[in-house]
């Protein structure tokens, strides 16, 4: 990551206005969004949107053709091009042919994408943004920091300073008054403008209509007052059927601003008369700019299902800390990273793709049903393909791909780490052998890894067997979690096997785009885990579980490798996470916990992969409550803790405030213990509590349950 980029992050996270505004907004957003969707089957709705948008993405040419012929037959002029330069030239030509001096614009990301304003201004045409937020940032000479709320980073005081200069009068920071000033200032601009430029939220092929949505009413003025209207529409806005407009209108306002409907929706089909009786000059530009290429890419075609609601930004724990400017000048947030990689260039996404911690929060709310984190991973993979792996990482991966050497080094680290040990924590841990940075307490490498301790466990002779996949963290940092797991499963009548040749699950390599390395890890693990006869392969690390259950397969798919695919599927079918299996065993009566225990208040942290990929949320909660804990839910229980594997090492400036927020939410519950199902989260949160000096116990569910079973067996 470049220094400049790092600096922009530091600047952003230290900008109290920005983080304050975004933080408050994201909290309110979640509540309001849920309210707006009350009584609506979101999954069904987004299923329909994904389907109709995906259909459109596979028929871009046809739909563009159909749109153009329909719109033209209703009297509009349609210009189709792949090239942003041609778009700019076309608009300028229309302007010059009609002697246009001033232009009013309603908000359009597509015009930002092609940097239209400076182009027109250089040709001597005055361009005025009319969306309040856009106008503010235009006056401030900045770029939008959010797709829907471009000026969210500015305070009312800053806005009043800007407006005061504009009207030559000292204004207070009274918001309704500032809004009035904007109305008064922009009204003459609307009335005087020779041309209006808008984007388009939807373009309907069947009818040649464009749909425009604004809350302020500026698009109505932009499309009504000037004699010429140019709508610049990216072809991803095309849909086939007019009736489907209703489907998108049902989701877009709810997801974007938690409104049932945007204040003004205009569906324009062909020109309408101007006040003087002449007909409006209506030009619709269908811009491709790599969208067709995107549609032809089996992986990225999905991104065209985006309806630009920005909810992926609103729920992103990273975005709410750094805001939009860190991402660049046009598209921001998770989807913005993907759009930048395509509409700008892959290389431009090099730094920003690293901002994604892969928590999956965006994927859950996306009305276009886009797997945003997966696409960001694909960008990472392609960057690595294009640029290769940096030397340091290459060395690291050579080690990770050689299990004996890797484990040997981890053992060595347990000795080397000794001098730095303070209690259970050391400062530097080459656990993922990622870039070493200091900054937080990390666990010491266990003196004796689980694989050694396992040999000393005496298990009863049992008929049924499960294979335990420990993962690096439990194996080398938290072997006691593995021991607890063995005790619990023994109680339920399972003998636990530990196939020795298991190695790193490949997630660290995969999350860094090194898919070849991840694939080698996958093959090693498949061989090891399928070599024993067991009913289940159980893991107590959700990241590892996801690797075994999903990512081995998708890694092979991405690389086009088929050799181990059927085994990968076999392994996936056998893989189960700790809480799901134990809940099942309790339900089947194979495990019982002591009745009537009063263990006090506990709070539960949902790990990203467990909740959003494996969809496990209730099982651990029910188990802990059954064991005798009283559950006190924390605020934002399912928001990422900021760990994200090596993320916390690479971007500590972002990871640290996310962790602090998590710690606060935990403390606010008054619980004396916080439980979670992921050793990575334990490492992050325990490290945070340790530095903080707070005496809240941070435990994996497996340890807490094992304690209760031991008691009940006595």
């Amino acid at each position, binding site marked *: 990551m470049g220094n400049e980029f790092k600096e922009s992050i530091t600047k952003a996270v230290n900008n109290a206005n920005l983080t304050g505004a975004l933080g408050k907004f994201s909290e309110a957003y979640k509540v309001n969004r849920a309210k707006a969707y009350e009584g609506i089957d979101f999954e069904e709705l987004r299923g329909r949107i994904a389907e109709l948008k995906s259909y459109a993405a596979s028929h871009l040419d046809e739909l563009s053709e159909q749109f153009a012929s329909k719109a033209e037959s209703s009297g509009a002029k349609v210009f189709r091009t792949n090239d942003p330069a041609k778009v700019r030239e076309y608009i300028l030509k229309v302007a010059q042919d009609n002697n246009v001096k001033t232009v009013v614009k309603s908000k359009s990301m597509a015009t930002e994408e092609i940097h239209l304003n400076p182009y027109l201004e250089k040709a001597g045409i005055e361009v005025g943004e009319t969306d309040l937020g856009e106008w503010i940032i235009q006056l401030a000479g900045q770029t939008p920091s959010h797709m829907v709320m471009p000026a969210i980073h500015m305070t009312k005081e800053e806005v009043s300073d800007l407006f005061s200069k504009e009207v030559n009068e000292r204004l207070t920071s009274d918001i309704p008054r500032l809004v009035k000033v904007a109305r008064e200032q922009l009204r003459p601009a609307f009335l005087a403008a020779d041309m209006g430029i808008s984007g388009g939220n939807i373009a309907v092929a069947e009818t040649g209509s464009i749909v425009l949505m604004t809350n302020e009413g500026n698009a109505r003025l932009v499309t009504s007052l000037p004699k010429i209207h140019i709508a610049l529409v990216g072809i991803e806005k095309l849909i086939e059927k007019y009736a489907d407009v209703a489907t998108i209108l049902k989701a877009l306002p709810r997801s974007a601003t938690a409104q*049932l409907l945007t204040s003004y*929706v205009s569906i324009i*089909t062909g020109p309408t008369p101007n006040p003087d009786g002449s007909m409006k000059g209506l030009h619709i530009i269908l811009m491709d700019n790599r969208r067709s290429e995107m549609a032809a890419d089996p992986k990225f075609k999905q991104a065209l299902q985006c309806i630009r609601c920005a909810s992926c930004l609103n729920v992103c724990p990273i975005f709410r800390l750094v805001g939009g400017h860190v991402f660049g000048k046009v598209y921001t947030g998770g989807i913005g990273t993907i759009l930048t990689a395509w509409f700008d260039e892959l290389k431009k996404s090099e730094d920003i793709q690293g901002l994604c911690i892969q928590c999956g929060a965006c994927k859950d709310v996306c009305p276009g049903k886009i797997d945003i984190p997966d696409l960001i991973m694909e960008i990472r993979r392609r960057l690595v393909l294009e640029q290769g792996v940096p030397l340091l990482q290459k060395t690291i991966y050579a080690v990770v791909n050689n299990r004996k050497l890797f484990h040997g080094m981890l053992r060595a680290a347990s000795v080397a780490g000794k001098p730095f040990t303070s209690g259970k924590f050391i400062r530097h841990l080459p656990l993922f052998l990622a870039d070493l940075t200091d900054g937080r307490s990390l666990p010491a490498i266990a003196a004796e890894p689980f694989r050694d301790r396992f040999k000393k466990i005496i298990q009863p002779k049992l008929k049924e067997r499960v294979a335990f996949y420990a993962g690096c963290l439990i194996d080398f940092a938290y072997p006691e979690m593995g021991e607890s797991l063995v005790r619990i499963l023994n109680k339920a009548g399972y003998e636990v096997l530990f196939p020795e040749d298991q190695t790193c699950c490949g997630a660290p390599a995969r999350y860094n785009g090194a898919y070849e390395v991840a694939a080698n890890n996958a093959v090693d693990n498949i061989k090891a885990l399928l070599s024993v006869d067991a009913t289940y392969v159980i893991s107590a690390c959700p990241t590892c579980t996801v690797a075994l259950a999903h990512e081995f397969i998708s890694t092979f798919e991405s690389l086009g490798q088929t050799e181990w695919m059927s085994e990968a599927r076999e392994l996936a079918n056998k893989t189960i996470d700790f809480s799901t299996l134990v809940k099942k065993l309790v339900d089947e009566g194979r495990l019982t916990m002591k009745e009537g225990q009063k263990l006090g208040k506990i709070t539960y942290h949902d790990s990203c992969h467990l909740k959003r990929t494996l969809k496990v949320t209730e099982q651990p909660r029910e188990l802990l409550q059954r064991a005798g804990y009283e559950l006190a839910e924390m605020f934002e229980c399912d928001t990422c803790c900021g760990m994200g594997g090596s993320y916390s090492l690479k971007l500590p400036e972002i990871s640290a405030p996310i962790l602090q927020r998590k710690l606060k939410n935990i403390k606010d519950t008054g619980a004396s213990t916080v439980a979670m199902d992921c050793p990575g989260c334990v490492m992050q949160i325990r490290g945070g509590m340790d530095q903080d000096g707070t005496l809240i116990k941070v435990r994996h569910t497996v340890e807490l349950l094992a304690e209760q079973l031991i008691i009940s067996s006595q």
Partner: protein
Amino acid sequence: MYEQFKIRAEGVSAEVYHYATKEAALDFLIGFLQGEGLADTPQACALWAECSFLDNLDRNVLKRVPGLKFVVTRELAAEARFGISQMDWALADTGSLAQNSSAIEQRLVSSLSSIHIAIVPTNGILPDMPALLSRVHPGDCAYLAIITGPSRTADIERVLTIGVHGPERLVIVFVDELGGTI
């Protein structure tokens, strides 16, 4: 559906009234306008766009109300404080109004004024957007306008503020005599 519409529309700061007869509605309208300071001066006058509500009404009587005008021009619309138009439909599930706004006059009075008064035939209430779209085909409607509450923004510090570029008040008057009852 009227009740649902009313709740939803009021939820987005619109004001909703209902009258059985045109006469009662007109009384309300004139009273409302005068109460809000209707006068024959810029920023105080009202512009009434052509609509079926006006059919069979004696315009000469109406024209005598100072400040009330029936010729819609750009210049007058830019000066008017009130805009009166008839909207064709109402959507119960979102509290929205819809109109075939292909005629520019309809848009001028509803987009430039500070207070937009929308007259709606009671039988124009539809359940939702799909019902509207199935009735209005773009082939017969070059500009379909759907309006939900007054103009709003949250662009400064996310504080909801009413009345940016469009009207700051939306007053909706249902009239049974134009068709339908509740």
